[in-house]
């Protein structure tokens, strides 16, 4: 009986709600990754962290971040949410470009410890971090709104 209740409940709320719930949770995850990124850049700038540490820490996060973002974009595409897909597509494009343009390196990631201390790069990393942070915050709000709409539609 409980199982039936649950499936009924799921059916009642509809797929929209759950898709956006999932996407929203992922967006929160991405948001925290960006905060982490910014903290690392700041630590690097202020001499609390050396470039090798910085690069290995952030390089680990690169593929998960890009992967999660591609995942939610594809998910939105799959469910036919054109607006949210269009909102995310440019960032996917940017990530692909960023990864293709990475320095020659055997491991994963985009940060090369020998060039990260370059002021131009440092400025770029922090600017990139802030812009993406803003992007994920707005994304989060969009997903939240969509989720609420889906919920309201389902409940009425």
């Amino acid at each position, binding site marked *: 009986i409980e199982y039936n209740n649950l499936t009924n409940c799921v059916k009642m709320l509809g797929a929209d709600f759950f898709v956006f719930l999932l996407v929203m949770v992922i967006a929160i995850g991405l948001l925290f990754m960006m905060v982490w990124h910014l903290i690392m850049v700041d630590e690097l700038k202020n*001499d609390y962290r050396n470039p090798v540490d910085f690069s290995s820490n952030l390089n680990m996060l690169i593929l998960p971040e890009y992967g999660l973002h591609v995942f939610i974009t594809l998910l939105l595409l799959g469910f036919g949410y054109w607006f949210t897909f269009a909102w995310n597509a440019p960032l996917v494009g940017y990530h692909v470009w960023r990864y293709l343009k990475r320095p*020659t*390196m055997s491991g994963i990631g985009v940060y*090369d410890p*020998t060039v990260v*201390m*370059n*002021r131009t790069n440092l400025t770029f990393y922090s600017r990139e971090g802030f812009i993406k942070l803003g992007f994920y915050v707005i994304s989060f709000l969009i997903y939240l709104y969509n989720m609420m709409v889906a919920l309201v539609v389902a409940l009425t």
Partner: protein
Amino acid sequence: VQSTLPPHPSSVQSTLPPHPSSVQSTLPPPPIGQSFPPPGGHSHPPPPGGHSLPPPPAGGQSILPPPPGSQSLPPPPAGGQSMLPPPPGGQSILPPPPGAQLFHPPPAGQSFPLPPPGGQSSGARPMTQGPQYTSSGGMTSGLVGPPTMSLVGPPPPSHSQAPLAQRYPHSVPPGTSEVSTTNYPPGSQYPSYGQTQPPLTLMQKQLQLPELQPVNLLENRNILPTQPLEHPLPSLPGHLVSRGPDPGVFCCSMNSIPATSSLLNKMKLPLAIHIHPFKDSKAKSCPVINPSVIVRCRVCRAYINPYVSFTDARHWRCNMCFRTNIVPEDYDYNPHSGKRGDRSHHTELKHSSVEYIAPSEYMVRPPQPSVYFFIIDVSYPAVESGLLGVFCRTLLDNLSRLPGDGRTMVGFLTYDHALHFYNLKSSQTQPQMLVVSDLSDVFIPSPHSLLVNLRESKELVKNLLEDLPKMFTDQRGIQSALGAALQVAEKLLHPIGGRITVLQSTLPNYGPGALKMKETSTSALKKDQLSTSASTDFYKKIALECSAQQIAVDLFVFSNPTQFIDLATISTVAKYSSGQIHYYPDFHHTKEIPTKRVERDLKRYLTRNIGFESVMRIRCTEGLSLHTFHGNFFVRSTDLLSLPNVNPDHGYCMNLAIDESLKDYSMVCFQAALLYTSYRGERRIRVHSLCLPVSDQLPQLYAGINLLATTAVLAKMGVDRVTTATLGDARDALLNTVQDATKAYRSNIASSMQASQFTLPSSLKLLPLFCLSLLKHPAFTLNAGISIDPRVQAMNLILTLPLNYLLVNIYPRLYALHTLSDKDTLDREGEDIVSPPVLQLSAEKLSRNGVFLMDYGKGMYIWVGKETPPPTIKQIFGLLHFGAIPELMCEIPLQDNPLSKLIKMLIYQIRSSRQHFMPLQVIREDGPQRLLFINYLLEDKTEDGTSYYELLSHVARQLNK
């Protein structure tokens, strides 16, 4: 209009009756301790006493003083000001702030009271010192140069007694008149000029500086001064100039630092510092001191230096962060004179370069011993070229001269498709060879006997070096497992640190880190798409591991020009571990010159000074920061370079960014502190400080440009561009620099009349020439004849050579030998040789009946014209006539005549001033090797590119678009 005005106002004061402020400022920079109170005496904050003399406006006295007593001249203070680093924002003709304190943000009001006549102003100093100053001024002034532009022409002949006004009827000495488009009216007109003209504004006065005289490039053919170019010195107050560092050790591309970043952006020129911290130096230029306490700023940890100010008897103000520190107890006590309040005995307050012997707080572990590990490629090409023999012989000869104490350790490893270890444990009678051929997971046999104490195992090492060349004579393999060898070497040296020397003769093509042949880059070159990034980061990773363990990897790469060895990739192992990269594209033991070169370079390499486990921190005054780094090191933090080994043949360069406005400061300071372990096992700190004035006046900024340093940093930025983008981008960037700088000069300074022409200020007039030589440099040329490895090496050299060596490398020096005479080569005592006149690199300077010497940085050529008269040939070469000169002549014999002796002296002087061996080659005008020489005539059209005038007209066209 302004530009044609006679530059009188700045000079006016100097001839006025001794008004306190004016006289003071025209006086020569006094020798330290002579007429000024010793440094300690400066401790009381100005104004008006203290050590705050306005910088002596050499320009003032030298540019044209009208006869004394002219009535209608502007008031003296106005004159004085043009030479001062202007007070923030003060453009007006306010009295100069004579009391501008060093490193103090001057108070907002600019109208400082004039110093009282009797005070510090040294008004009583006799004017007879003036001539001294002018004669020395040739070297001391950037802004405040003597009338000769510091880049142009010899300093004016010494004129000891004549009154100044007579001495300089024209502000422009004869040699410069053709360079400057501004011709000054005869001196006699000056007084009347002064009567009719209203006083000029500060800006106009600054425009009269000799460095700012506009030069119309299209109309001036002979733009290169005949004297070798010197670095202009910053216009600091006199007593500080004399303490400044040798420009070859520490200098900046701008001798006046722009007060804001927008000013810097307006100029479109780079701001960068060059440091050669570990230059072989005599004790005089970098004294070693062992103070009881090393005085440093408590906040920013900067070392005390000659440019700090003492706010009162107990406090000094740091010139990096401007915080006040307490002077340690007893610092004021002079044991020599027994007086308190006397700091004159402190060497660190007198010299901008000092070396401290560091106490134990500066060690994280006991100082490491000298450790030298040699890893040698013994594949077929290495054995066939005879490298092994040459290396072993050289090392054997210099074994006892390896720098180090009794703890010195050495080890050897050879590799082809396997690794050969050598057990040199002193308990053995014979070196024992251990071969490991499984490279996937190398196991190190008997790890404790591979790296041995040199003193204990000396006999074994000698045995090994004697046997080594014979051991591989039947080598036929061409595999070379460099990657595995480096990994093992890193593991062996891991606990101690030290130096790994790699001798590589073939592409590393086996085991981990194997590289593949790449397509030669000719097609990429044609499309400007050449890029020289590494093909794998294997070697970079090793370098970073080494760097973390205080190990440096030095590379000696032997190859031939057709054989690809992927230097771009393997050089990264040296690049990020602070190692040096040597590349010999034509080595074979049967060839005389290359062999000699290798031997000499190896000898120098093995015996030169070395510093272990070192770091260098570069501190700047707050508001400035390091932006980009050029050189071989790993950047560990925003201002900290990790240099596992520091060697005397490397220079470093950093671009600067202006983060905050510097308007509140009159001067900024840079300090490079190199902490290292000497080969004697002492921890030492070498501190270099550089102090520069700040200016918010564009004319002053332009006048303060050090074009030599600017050229060098442009080259380095160009190399960065080739690595991150493509060759075409780098070339465009270089060309754009000329265009942008000219455009910027037009819009910033030039009057409307000059704006229609292609003019640059005198301080910048060589920029197009140097950019052209950069475009033709092997690193940047489009000439497909230069393959990728030599190109990469040319780039490495640009990044690592110390400034002065790099400049010869960029723009070679050409001397005429047949016209050498004692007059221009010997100094006054007739003992030391001074440089003879330098010629422009153009075929029109050559003559068929002359003999010329070209110093192109890597070596020297002697060019003999076809119609050289037999007596000259006889004098120089000891041969009967031109035809008797052999095709290959690498040394010229010493003949018993003055000309030959002078030439030999010149060659000796050039050779001894270089870090590496300078081969000499005689080239006949009709010989097959003439192209080698011709290609260095950079101003002509060569296969590397356009001629100087084509470049100029191209830029001029772009400008007028």
